[in-house]
Protein backbone atom coordinates (compact mmCIF):
# COMPACT_ATOMS: atom_id res chain seq x y z
CA UNK A 1 0.00 0.00 0.00
CA UNK A 2 1.84 3.07 -1.21
CA UNK A 3 -0.31 6.18 -1.20
CA UNK A 4 2.45 8.76 -1.43
CA UNK A 5 3.13 10.37 -4.81
CA UNK A 6 5.77 12.90 -5.76
CA UNK A 7 3.73 15.47 -7.63
CA UNK A 8 0.12 16.47 -8.04
CA UNK A 9 0.27 15.43 -11.70
CA UNK A 10 1.50 11.94 -10.79
CA UNK A 11 -1.12 11.63 -8.07
CA UNK A 12 -3.87 12.42 -10.58
CA UNK A 13 -2.49 10.15 -13.28
CA UNK A 14 -5.23 7.94 -14.70
CA UNK A 15 -7.97 9.52 -12.61
CA UNK A 16 -9.12 12.33 -14.89
CA UNK A 17 -11.63 12.13 -17.70
CA UNK A 18 -13.82 14.67 -19.51
CA UNK A 19 -17.26 15.20 -18.02
CA UNK A 20 -16.38 13.86 -14.59
CA UNK A 21 -17.75 15.03 -11.24
CA UNK A 22 -15.10 16.41 -8.90
CA UNK A 23 -15.73 17.30 -5.25
CA UNK A 24 -13.32 19.86 -3.86
CA UNK A 25 -12.66 20.86 -0.25
CA UNK A 26 -12.11 24.39 0.99
CA UNK A 27 -14.07 27.46 2.03
CA UNK A 28 -13.26 30.63 0.17
CA UNK A 29 -9.50 30.33 -0.36
CA UNK A 30 -9.02 28.62 3.02
CA UNK A 31 -8.01 24.98 2.92
CA UNK A 32 -8.32 24.60 -0.83
CA UNK A 33 -6.39 21.92 -2.76
CA UNK A 34 -4.42 24.50 -4.71
CA UNK A 35 -1.75 22.16 -6.07
CA UNK A 36 -4.26 19.61 -7.34
CA UNK A 37 -6.32 22.37 -8.96
CA UNK A 38 -3.20 23.59 -10.78
CA UNK A 39 -2.50 20.04 -11.96
CA UNK A 40 -6.07 19.67 -13.25
CA UNK A 41 -5.66 22.95 -15.14
CA UNK A 42 -2.47 21.60 -16.68
CA UNK A 43 -4.11 18.28 -17.59
CA UNK A 44 -6.57 19.99 -19.92
CA UNK A 45 -9.44 17.75 -18.82
CA UNK A 46 -12.75 19.44 -19.64
CA UNK A 47 -16.53 19.56 -19.14
CA UNK A 48 -16.04 19.12 -15.42
CA UNK A 49 -18.83 19.37 -12.90
CA UNK A 50 -17.32 20.64 -9.67
CA UNK A 51 -19.01 20.42 -6.27
CA UNK A 52 -17.33 23.04 -4.10
CA UNK A 53 -18.76 25.55 -1.68
CA UNK A 54 -17.08 28.44 -3.51
CA UNK A 55 -15.47 28.94 -6.89
CA UNK A 56 -12.19 30.56 -5.88
CA UNK A 57 -11.23 34.04 -7.07
CA UNK A 58 -10.38 35.08 -10.60
CA UNK A 59 -6.72 34.07 -10.50
CA UNK A 60 -6.57 31.51 -7.70
CA UNK A 61 -8.15 28.22 -6.74
CA UNK A 62 -11.07 27.01 -8.84
CA UNK A 63 -11.10 30.41 -10.56
CA UNK A 64 -8.19 29.10 -12.64
CA UNK A 65 -10.32 26.23 -13.94
CA UNK A 66 -13.09 28.70 -14.76
CA UNK A 67 -10.66 30.92 -16.63
CA UNK A 68 -9.64 27.99 -18.84
CA UNK A 69 -13.29 27.06 -19.34
CA UNK A 70 -12.68 23.50 -18.13
CA UNK A 71 -15.72 23.66 -15.84
CA UNK A 72 -19.14 23.03 -17.33
CA UNK A 73 -21.12 23.18 -14.12
CA UNK A 74 -20.63 24.29 -10.53
CA UNK A 75 -22.51 23.00 -7.47
CA UNK A 76 -21.91 25.71 -4.89
CA UNK A 77 -23.49 27.85 -2.18
CA UNK A 78 -21.67 31.13 -2.74
CA UNK A 79 -19.72 32.42 -5.70
CA UNK A 80 -19.67 36.11 -4.92
CA UNK A 81 -15.93 36.69 -5.12
CA UNK A 82 -15.46 35.69 -8.70
CA UNK A 83 -16.14 38.15 -11.54
CA UNK A 84 -15.32 35.71 -14.35
CA UNK A 85 -17.67 33.18 -12.79
CA UNK A 86 -20.46 35.75 -12.75
CA UNK A 87 -19.79 36.67 -16.36
CA UNK A 88 -19.84 33.05 -17.59
CA UNK A 89 -22.97 32.31 -15.58
CA UNK A 90 -24.93 35.37 -16.64
CA UNK A 91 -24.00 34.73 -20.29
CA UNK A 92 -25.19 31.12 -20.01
CA UNK A 93 -21.76 29.60 -20.65
CA UNK A 94 -21.61 27.99 -17.21
CA UNK A 95 -24.25 25.95 -15.43
CA UNK A 96 -24.73 26.66 -11.77
CA UNK A 97 -26.64 24.62 -9.22
CA UNK A 98 -26.99 26.60 -6.04
CA UNK A 99 -27.07 24.51 -2.88
CA UNK A 100 -27.58 25.89 0.61
CA UNK A 101 -24.18 25.55 2.27
CA UNK A 102 -25.30 23.01 4.86
CA UNK A 103 -27.21 21.02 2.28
CA UNK A 104 -24.10 20.87 0.10
CA UNK A 105 -21.95 19.68 3.03
CA UNK A 106 -24.55 17.11 4.05
CA UNK A 107 -25.01 15.90 0.48
CA UNK A 108 -21.27 15.21 0.30
CA UNK A 109 -21.22 13.44 3.66
CA UNK A 110 -24.31 11.44 2.66
CA UNK A 111 -22.70 10.31 -0.58
CA UNK A 112 -19.67 9.17 1.37
CA UNK A 113 -21.84 7.38 3.90
CA UNK A 114 -23.90 5.47 1.33
CA UNK A 115 -27.01 7.58 1.88
CA UNK A 116 -28.64 8.39 -1.46
CA UNK A 117 -31.17 10.83 -0.01
CA UNK A 118 -32.17 12.67 3.16
CA UNK A 119 -34.84 15.14 4.19
CA UNK A 120 -34.17 18.67 5.36
CA UNK A 121 -36.17 21.74 6.22
CA UNK A 122 -33.54 23.95 4.64
CA UNK A 123 -34.94 25.63 1.56
CA UNK A 124 -38.58 24.66 2.12
CA UNK A 125 -40.78 27.32 0.54
CA UNK A 126 -37.92 28.72 -1.56
CA UNK A 127 -36.91 28.19 -5.17
CA UNK A 128 -34.45 25.53 -3.95
CA UNK A 129 -37.48 23.34 -3.21
CA UNK A 130 -39.19 23.81 -6.55
CA UNK A 131 -38.06 20.62 -8.22
CA UNK A 132 -37.76 18.55 -5.07
CA UNK A 133 -39.94 15.95 -3.45
CA UNK A 134 -41.66 17.13 -0.27
CA UNK A 135 -42.50 14.88 2.66
CA UNK A 136 -44.05 15.59 6.01
CA UNK A 137 -42.58 14.50 9.30
CA UNK A 138 -44.45 15.50 12.45
CA UNK A 139 -46.70 17.77 10.41
CA UNK A 140 -43.87 19.81 8.93
CA UNK A 141 -42.63 19.88 5.35
CA UNK A 142 -39.16 18.68 4.47
CA UNK A 143 -37.52 18.36 1.07
CA UNK A 144 -35.54 15.44 -0.29
CA UNK A 145 -31.90 16.15 -1.06
CA UNK A 146 -29.67 13.57 -2.73
CA UNK A 147 -26.23 12.35 -1.78
CA UNK A 148 -23.33 13.45 -3.97
CA UNK A 149 -21.25 10.60 -5.35
CA UNK A 150 -18.17 12.14 -6.97
CA UNK A 151 -15.79 10.47 -9.37
CA UNK A 152 -12.87 12.20 -7.69
CA UNK A 153 -12.32 14.16 -4.49
CA UNK A 154 -9.52 16.66 -4.11
CA UNK A 155 -8.75 17.93 -0.62
CA UNK A 156 -6.13 19.83 1.34
CA UNK A 157 -5.03 18.88 4.85
CA UNK A 158 -2.34 20.12 7.20
CA UNK A 159 -0.56 16.84 7.90
CA UNK A 160 -0.87 13.25 6.86
CA UNK A 161 0.84 10.06 7.86
CA UNK A 162 1.94 7.73 5.07
CA UNK A 163 -1.24 5.64 5.44
CA UNK A 164 -3.33 8.69 4.57
CA UNK A 165 -4.64 9.56 8.01
CA UNK A 166 -5.25 13.32 7.88
CA UNK A 167 -5.29 16.18 10.32
CA UNK A 168 -6.53 19.64 9.47
CA UNK A 169 -5.72 22.97 11.03
CA UNK A 170 -8.32 25.40 12.42
CA UNK A 171 -11.00 26.54 9.96
CA UNK A 172 -9.08 25.05 7.02
CA UNK A 173 -10.91 21.81 7.83
CA UNK A 174 -14.29 23.03 6.54
CA UNK A 175 -15.53 21.06 3.51
CA UNK A 176 -12.46 18.87 3.21
CA UNK A 177 -13.69 15.85 5.22
CA UNK A 178 -17.13 15.61 3.58
CA UNK A 179 -15.60 16.23 0.14
CA UNK A 180 -13.04 13.49 0.74
CA UNK A 181 -15.73 11.05 1.83
CA UNK A 182 -17.91 11.37 -1.27
CA UNK A 183 -15.34 10.51 -3.92
CA UNK A 184 -14.80 7.12 -5.49
CA UNK A 185 -11.14 8.12 -5.34
CA UNK A 186 -9.72 10.83 -3.10
CA UNK A 187 -6.42 12.61 -3.60
CA UNK A 188 -5.11 14.76 -0.74
CA UNK A 189 -2.39 17.39 -0.69
CA UNK A 190 -0.75 18.23 2.62
CA UNK A 191 1.92 20.50 4.02
CA UNK A 192 3.76 17.64 5.66
CA UNK A 193 3.75 13.85 5.50
CA UNK A 194 4.91 12.22 8.72
CA UNK A 195 5.61 8.53 9.41
CA UNK A 196 2.73 6.39 10.63
CA UNK A 197 2.55 6.41 14.40
CA UNK A 198 3.58 10.09 14.64
CA UNK A 199 -0.01 11.27 15.05
CA UNK A 200 -2.02 10.37 18.15
CA UNK A 201 -4.81 8.17 16.71
CA UNK A 202 -7.33 10.18 18.74
CA UNK A 203 -6.25 13.36 16.93
CA UNK A 204 -6.88 12.07 13.42
CA UNK A 205 -9.68 14.00 11.75
CA UNK A 206 -10.08 11.85 8.66
CA UNK A 207 -9.05 8.18 8.66
CA UNK A 208 -6.77 7.04 5.82
CA UNK A 209 -9.45 4.76 4.41
CA UNK A 210 -10.88 7.85 2.73
CA UNK A 211 -7.57 8.87 1.15
CA UNK A 212 -6.21 6.94 -1.80
CA UNK A 213 -3.35 9.12 -2.94
CA UNK A 214 -1.28 11.73 -1.20
CA UNK A 215 1.21 14.47 -1.99
CA UNK A 216 3.26 16.86 0.07
CA UNK A 217 3.85 20.34 -1.29
CA UNK A 218 4.32 24.07 -0.80
CA UNK A 219 1.10 26.03 -0.41
CA UNK A 220 0.53 29.69 -1.05
CA UNK A 221 -2.43 29.80 1.34
CA UNK A 222 -3.62 33.17 0.11
CA UNK A 223 -5.64 35.35 2.49
CA UNK A 224 -8.82 36.74 0.96
CA UNK A 225 -9.60 39.48 3.47
CA UNK A 226 -6.79 40.49 5.78
CA UNK A 227 -8.63 42.02 8.74
CA UNK A 228 -6.65 43.10 11.78
CA UNK A 229 -6.82 45.34 14.83
CA UNK A 230 -4.10 47.51 16.29
CA UNK A 231 -1.85 45.82 18.80
CA UNK A 232 -2.15 47.46 22.21
CA UNK A 233 1.13 48.31 23.90
CA UNK A 234 2.67 45.12 25.27
CA UNK A 235 -0.04 42.77 24.03
CA UNK A 236 1.31 39.37 23.04
CA UNK A 237 -1.42 36.84 23.74
CA UNK A 238 -2.65 35.10 20.65
CA UNK A 239 -5.45 33.30 22.40
CA UNK A 240 -7.67 35.13 24.81
CA UNK A 241 -11.05 34.73 26.39
CA UNK A 242 -13.94 36.92 25.31
Amino acid at each position, binding site marked *: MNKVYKTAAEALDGLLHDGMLVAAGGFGLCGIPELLIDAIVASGVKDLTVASNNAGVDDFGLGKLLATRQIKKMMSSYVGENAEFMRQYLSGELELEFNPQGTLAERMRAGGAGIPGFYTQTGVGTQIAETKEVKQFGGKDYILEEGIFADLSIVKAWKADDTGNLIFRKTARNFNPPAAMCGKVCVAEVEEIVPRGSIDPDHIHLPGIYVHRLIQGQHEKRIEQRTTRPRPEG*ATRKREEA
Partner: protein
Amino acid sequence: MPWDRNQMAARAAQELEDGMYVNLGIGIPTLVANYVGDKDITLQSENGMLGMGPFPYVGEEDPDLINAGKQTITELARTSYFDSATSFGMIRGGKIAAAVLGAMEVSEKGDLANWMIPGKLVKGMGGAMDLVAGVGRVVVVMDHTNKHGDSKVLKECTLPLTGKGVVDRIITNLGVLDVTHKGLHIVECADGVTRDDIITATEATIV
Protein backbone atom coordinates in the same frame (compact mmCIF):
# COMPACT_ATOMS: atom_id res chain seq x y z
CA MET B 1 -33.95 60.18 15.53
CA PRO B 2 -33.62 56.78 13.81
CA TRP B 3 -30.95 54.44 15.08
CA ASP B 4 -27.62 54.26 13.25
CA ARG B 5 -25.83 51.00 12.46
CA ASN B 6 -24.20 50.77 15.83
CA GLN B 7 -27.39 51.53 17.72
CA MET B 8 -29.19 48.83 15.75
CA ALA B 9 -26.41 46.40 16.58
CA ALA B 10 -26.57 47.40 20.24
CA ARG B 11 -30.33 46.84 20.26
CA ALA B 12 -29.86 43.44 18.61
CA ALA B 13 -27.33 42.51 21.28
CA GLN B 14 -30.13 42.82 23.86
CA GLU B 15 -31.75 39.81 22.20
CA LEU B 16 -28.88 37.60 23.29
CA GLU B 17 -28.87 35.86 26.63
CA ASP B 18 -26.13 34.48 28.79
CA GLY B 19 -24.92 31.05 27.68
CA MET B 20 -26.29 31.31 24.15
CA TYR B 21 -24.55 29.96 21.05
CA VAL B 22 -25.17 32.53 18.34
CA ASN B 23 -24.50 33.03 14.65
CA LEU B 24 -24.04 36.58 13.38
CA GLY B 25 -24.42 37.37 9.70
CA ILE B 26 -22.29 39.70 7.63
CA GLY B 27 -22.73 43.50 7.86
CA ILE B 28 -24.53 45.13 10.78
CA PRO B 29 -25.02 41.74 12.51
CA THR B 30 -21.24 41.41 12.80
CA LEU B 31 -21.22 44.60 14.88
CA VAL B 32 -23.51 42.95 17.45
CA ALA B 33 -20.45 41.24 18.94
CA ASN B 34 -19.23 44.65 20.12
CA TYR B 35 -22.29 45.13 22.33
CA VAL B 36 -22.77 41.85 24.20
CA GLY B 37 -21.07 43.29 27.29
CA ASP B 38 -20.68 40.84 30.16
CA LYS B 39 -22.97 38.24 28.66
CA ASP B 40 -21.34 34.91 28.02
CA ILE B 41 -22.05 34.43 24.33
CA THR B 42 -20.31 31.90 22.09
CA LEU B 43 -20.20 32.91 18.44
CA GLN B 44 -20.37 30.30 15.73
CA SER B 45 -18.68 30.77 12.40
CA GLU B 46 -20.45 28.38 10.08
CA ASN B 47 -17.29 27.48 8.19
CA GLY B 48 -16.42 25.31 11.19
CA MET B 49 -15.77 27.09 14.47
CA LEU B 50 -17.41 27.83 17.80
CA GLY B 51 -15.89 30.56 19.93
CA MET B 52 -14.94 33.14 17.32
CA GLY B 53 -12.54 35.77 18.61
CA PRO B 54 -11.74 39.29 17.38
CA PHE B 55 -9.55 40.24 14.42
CA PRO B 56 -5.88 39.36 14.94
CA TYR B 57 -3.18 41.89 15.74
CA VAL B 58 -1.31 43.07 12.68
CA GLY B 59 1.19 40.38 11.69
CA GLU B 60 -0.71 37.56 13.40
CA GLU B 61 -3.14 36.84 10.57
CA ASP B 62 -3.46 33.11 9.95
CA PRO B 63 -4.68 31.95 6.52
CA ASP B 64 -6.12 28.84 8.20
CA LEU B 65 -8.29 30.90 10.53
CA ILE B 66 -11.08 32.85 8.88
CA ASN B 67 -14.75 33.50 9.53
CA ALA B 68 -17.68 32.93 7.19
CA GLY B 69 -17.06 36.39 5.70
CA LYS B 70 -13.53 35.18 4.76
CA GLN B 71 -11.97 37.67 7.23
CA THR B 72 -8.97 36.72 9.34
CA ILE B 73 -9.99 36.19 12.98
CA THR B 74 -8.63 34.66 16.20
CA GLU B 75 -9.56 31.84 18.53
CA LEU B 76 -10.52 31.93 22.21
CA ALA B 77 -9.95 29.56 25.12
CA ARG B 78 -13.35 27.99 24.48
CA THR B 79 -12.83 27.50 20.74
CA SER B 80 -13.50 24.26 18.91
CA TYR B 81 -13.11 23.47 15.21
CA PHE B 82 -15.11 21.01 13.12
CA ASP B 83 -15.99 20.29 9.51
CA SER B 84 -18.79 21.90 7.49
CA ALA B 85 -21.13 18.90 7.72
CA THR B 86 -20.90 18.99 11.52
CA SER B 87 -21.22 22.76 11.54
CA PHE B 88 -24.47 22.72 9.63
CA GLY B 89 -25.60 19.68 11.57
CA MET B 90 -25.63 21.87 14.65
CA ILE B 91 -27.37 24.66 12.75
CA ARG B 92 -30.01 22.43 11.15
CA GLY B 93 -30.38 20.50 14.40
CA GLY B 94 -31.43 23.58 16.34
CA LYS B 95 -28.36 23.75 18.59
CA ILE B 96 -27.71 27.40 17.69
CA ALA B 97 -30.02 29.49 19.89
CA ALA B 98 -30.21 32.52 17.65
CA ALA B 99 -29.04 34.03 14.40
CA VAL B 100 -28.86 37.75 13.69
CA LEU B 101 -29.03 38.34 9.95
CA GLY B 102 -29.32 41.15 7.45
CA ALA B 103 -32.17 41.27 4.94
CA MET B 104 -33.27 42.81 1.66
CA GLU B 105 -36.97 42.25 2.42
CA VAL B 106 -39.06 40.79 5.23
CA SER B 107 -42.77 40.03 5.05
CA GLU B 108 -45.42 40.25 7.75
CA LYS B 109 -45.56 36.43 7.73
CA GLY B 110 -41.89 36.25 8.62
CA ASP B 111 -40.70 35.43 5.11
CA LEU B 112 -37.13 36.54 4.51
CA ALA B 113 -35.37 37.50 1.27
CA ASN B 114 -31.67 38.19 1.54
CA TRP B 115 -29.79 36.21 -1.05
CA MET B 116 -30.68 37.12 -4.59
CA ILE B 117 -31.84 39.82 -6.97
CA PRO B 118 -32.75 37.96 -10.17
CA GLY B 119 -30.62 38.89 -13.17
CA LYS B 120 -28.54 41.22 -11.08
CA LEU B 121 -27.03 39.70 -7.98
CA VAL B 122 -26.28 36.00 -8.03
CA LYS B 123 -23.77 35.47 -5.27
CA GLY B 124 -25.63 32.59 -3.66
CA MET B 125 -27.33 31.90 -0.36
CA GLY B 126 -24.26 30.59 1.43
CA GLY B 127 -25.44 29.36 4.81
CA ALA B 128 -28.42 31.70 5.14
CA MET B 129 -31.11 29.19 4.15
CA ASP B 130 -29.72 26.65 6.60
CA LEU B 131 -29.57 29.20 9.38
CA VAL B 132 -33.12 30.49 9.04
CA ALA B 133 -34.47 26.94 8.78
CA GLY B 134 -32.52 25.62 11.74
CA VAL B 135 -31.70 28.07 14.50
CA GLY B 136 -33.93 28.66 17.49
CA ARG B 137 -34.65 32.33 16.86
CA VAL B 138 -34.08 34.51 13.80
CA VAL B 139 -33.56 38.23 14.36
CA VAL B 140 -33.28 40.42 11.29
CA VAL B 141 -31.39 43.71 11.42
CA MET B 142 -31.79 46.11 8.48
CA ASP B 143 -32.79 49.61 7.45
CA HIS B 144 -36.55 50.03 7.41
CA THR B 145 -36.54 51.38 3.86
CA ASN B 146 -34.26 51.06 0.87
CA LYS B 147 -32.28 53.87 -0.70
CA HIS B 148 -35.31 54.85 -2.79
CA GLY B 149 -37.38 55.22 0.40
CA ASP B 150 -39.46 52.09 -0.32
CA SER B 151 -40.39 49.93 2.63
CA LYS B 152 -38.40 46.73 3.10
CA VAL B 153 -41.07 45.46 5.51
CA LEU B 154 -43.69 44.11 3.15
CA LYS B 155 -46.98 42.26 2.94
CA GLU B 156 -45.24 39.82 0.60
CA CYS B 157 -41.60 39.62 -0.39
CA THR B 158 -40.94 40.36 -4.06
CA LEU B 159 -37.48 38.77 -4.18
CA PRO B 160 -36.70 35.04 -4.07
CA LEU B 161 -37.06 33.80 -0.50
CA THR B 162 -34.34 32.63 1.83
CA GLY B 163 -36.97 31.12 4.10
CA LYS B 164 -40.72 31.11 4.59
CA GLY B 165 -42.17 32.15 7.93
CA VAL B 166 -38.77 32.07 9.60
CA VAL B 167 -38.25 35.55 11.05
CA ASP B 168 -39.13 36.10 14.72
CA ARG B 169 -38.11 39.72 15.23
CA ILE B 170 -37.14 42.63 12.99
CA ILE B 171 -34.83 45.37 14.24
CA THR B 172 -34.65 48.38 11.93
CA ASN B 173 -33.38 51.92 12.21
CA LEU B 174 -36.91 52.87 13.27
CA GLY B 175 -37.60 50.29 15.96
CA VAL B 176 -38.34 46.70 16.82
CA LEU B 177 -41.17 44.61 15.35
CA ASP B 178 -42.30 41.08 16.16
CA VAL B 179 -43.81 38.69 13.66
CA THR B 180 -47.11 37.38 15.03
CA HIS B 181 -49.74 35.23 13.34
CA LYS B 182 -51.93 38.33 12.97
CA GLY B 183 -49.28 40.64 11.50
CA LEU B 184 -46.39 42.71 12.76
CA HIS B 185 -46.42 44.00 16.31
CA ILE B 186 -44.40 47.10 17.23
CA VAL B 187 -42.32 46.23 20.29
CA GLU B 188 -40.26 49.38 20.55
CA CYS B 189 -39.63 52.66 18.71
CA ALA B 190 -36.24 54.25 18.27
CA ASP B 191 -35.76 57.48 20.28
CA GLY B 192 -37.89 60.20 18.74
CA VAL B 193 -39.56 57.80 16.31
CA THR B 194 -43.31 57.38 16.75
CA ARG B 195 -45.56 54.41 16.06
CA ASP B 196 -47.03 56.48 13.24
CA ASP B 197 -43.58 57.00 11.75
CA ILE B 198 -43.12 53.22 11.69
CA ILE B 199 -46.58 52.59 10.27
CA THR B 200 -45.95 55.16 7.51
CA ALA B 201 -42.65 53.54 6.60
CA THR B 202 -44.11 50.02 6.59
CA GLU B 203 -46.00 48.37 3.76
CA ALA B 204 -46.87 45.34 5.88
CA THR B 205 -49.84 45.06 8.22
CA ILE B 206 -49.08 46.43 11.68
CA VAL B 207 -51.35 45.14 14.45
